[in-house]
């Protein structure tokens, strides 16, 4: 390193010494320590910079700026309709999907009710009193019970996070993942900040991504959950992807849990498949020690755009 290079670097050395431990300046500082002329130049440069910086730091701030700032921000947050909690909750609710067969189950329950209510009418009772335990009433109650049971088992009960497949191949995982995400998901932790979700996963010794596709890097988090596939732990992380505000799910495994190979991230977008069931698209890739499955209820091109 010559004098000219050292001076170019040291010109960016902050006069208050904040950059003392920055390795980028180490060689130039060492040279200044050995070379008297360069050392004198640096001392002079820092003195001039410090004087100017001190003058700048005394440039007055408008008296009411701080109060005005908080007033403007308070008004922004009090605006009708603004509620960070509501915003997050609505986003999380939007991700809940009704089960596939709910419509058919309801129709089937209605058919049972119809069969009951079209039974031949009972002979008139001598007392001619309304009997709530008559066949049609029982039928209605039974049908209601069936519907309630169907609703509970299909809709209100969360999807089972413990999945069993014949073997943990990428195709099997993709299919199980779509099944799981098509149900009602209860997240273990909800937070819009990705970092908070990764900390939760780390504290529970669950895998999380080191590098994300570009479209997810600044996405808001929704939440995360532990899954188990054949008793192998995996993480589900849900994101609110900015383009179109779609929800994107990322399932992360330890790589050695997966049978078969996956492409690297750079090639993953060329391998977005389209599950024929319910419009889900899937992309999968691996890095050194993790395997990733990214799913979204969207066209493959939309999922590919997240890369």
């Amino acid at each position, binding site marked *: 390193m010559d004098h000219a290079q050292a001076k170019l670097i040291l010109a960016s050395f902050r006069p208050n010494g904040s950059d003392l431990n920055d390795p980028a300046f180490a060689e130039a500082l060492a040279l200044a320590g050995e070379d008297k002329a360069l050392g004198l130049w640096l001392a002079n440069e820092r003195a001039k910079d410090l004087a100017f910086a001190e*003058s700048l730091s005394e*440039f007055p*701030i408008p008296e009411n*700026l701080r109060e005005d700032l908080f007033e403007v921000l308070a008004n922004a947050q009090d605006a009708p309709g603004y509620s960070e909690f509501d915003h997050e909750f609505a986003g999380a609710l939007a991700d809940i999907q009704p089960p596939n067969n709910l419509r058919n189950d309801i129709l089937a329950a209605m058919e049972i009710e119809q069969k009951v209510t079209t039974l031949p009418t009972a002979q008139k009772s001598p007392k001619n009193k309304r009997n709530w335990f008559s066949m049609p009433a029982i039928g209605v109650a039974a049908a209601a019970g069936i519907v309630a049971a169907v609703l509970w088992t299909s809709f209100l009960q969360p999807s089972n996070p413990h999945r069993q497949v014949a073997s943990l191949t990428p195709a099997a995982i993709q299919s199980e993942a779509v099944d799981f995400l098509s149900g009602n998901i209860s997240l273990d932790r909800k937070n819009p900040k990705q970092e908070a979700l990764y900390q939760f996963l780390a504290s529970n010794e669950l895998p999380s991504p080191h590098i994300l596709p570009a479209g997810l890097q600044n996405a808001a988090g929704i939440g995360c959950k532990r899954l188990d596939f054949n008793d192998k732990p995996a993480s589900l992380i849900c994101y609110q992807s900015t383009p179109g505000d779609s929800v994107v799910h990322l399932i992360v495994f330890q790589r050695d849990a997966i049978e078969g190979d996956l492409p690297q991230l750079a090639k993953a977008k060329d391998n977005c498949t389209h599950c024929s069931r319910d419009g889900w698209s899937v992309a999968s890739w691996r890095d050194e020690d993790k395997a990733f499955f990214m799913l979204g209820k969207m066209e493959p091109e939309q999922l590919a755009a997240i890369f």
Partner: protein
Amino acid sequence: MTEFEELVDTHYQALYRFGYSLAKTPERASDLVQQTFVKWAEKGHQLKDRSKAKTWLFTTLYREYLSHARRSTKFPERDLEEAEYQLPAKAADADRQLDAKRAVNLLAQLDETFRAPLTLFFLQEQSYKEIAETLDIPIGTVMSRISRGKKQLRELMETAVDPETENVVKFNQKG
């Protein structure tokens, strides 16, 4: 104090000074700072790495300034000397405030390419790497602009006209 209040208190003054060096009026500088923190209130929760909050704020303010500068061709730039900016009339602080105003005046006279990186350098809130990130320019370019900007600044200081006395004076160095 909430995290948000702490963030405002920690950075609003340096942000104002940076905004002033760009926009040259206290009203516009205040607007830039307000817009920056409103954006933080709306979107700051998306920032994964909270240690990047400072860079995020300076970057946002700079982008707000550029966005407004592109849109607004109708409003001519006002010379700093003509600005109706009233300094508090405390005699004990008069010399320091004069130096402060002269410092900002000198920065305002720099080439546009030097003004932002040099102001950020002298505010001392950011390293040259953070300045590169804020201004979205390569690290080597930041170093070059700081070096060349200081050279131009020193030349201006040698021939600066004191707006108070109309005399050519050397910049009053302390220490």
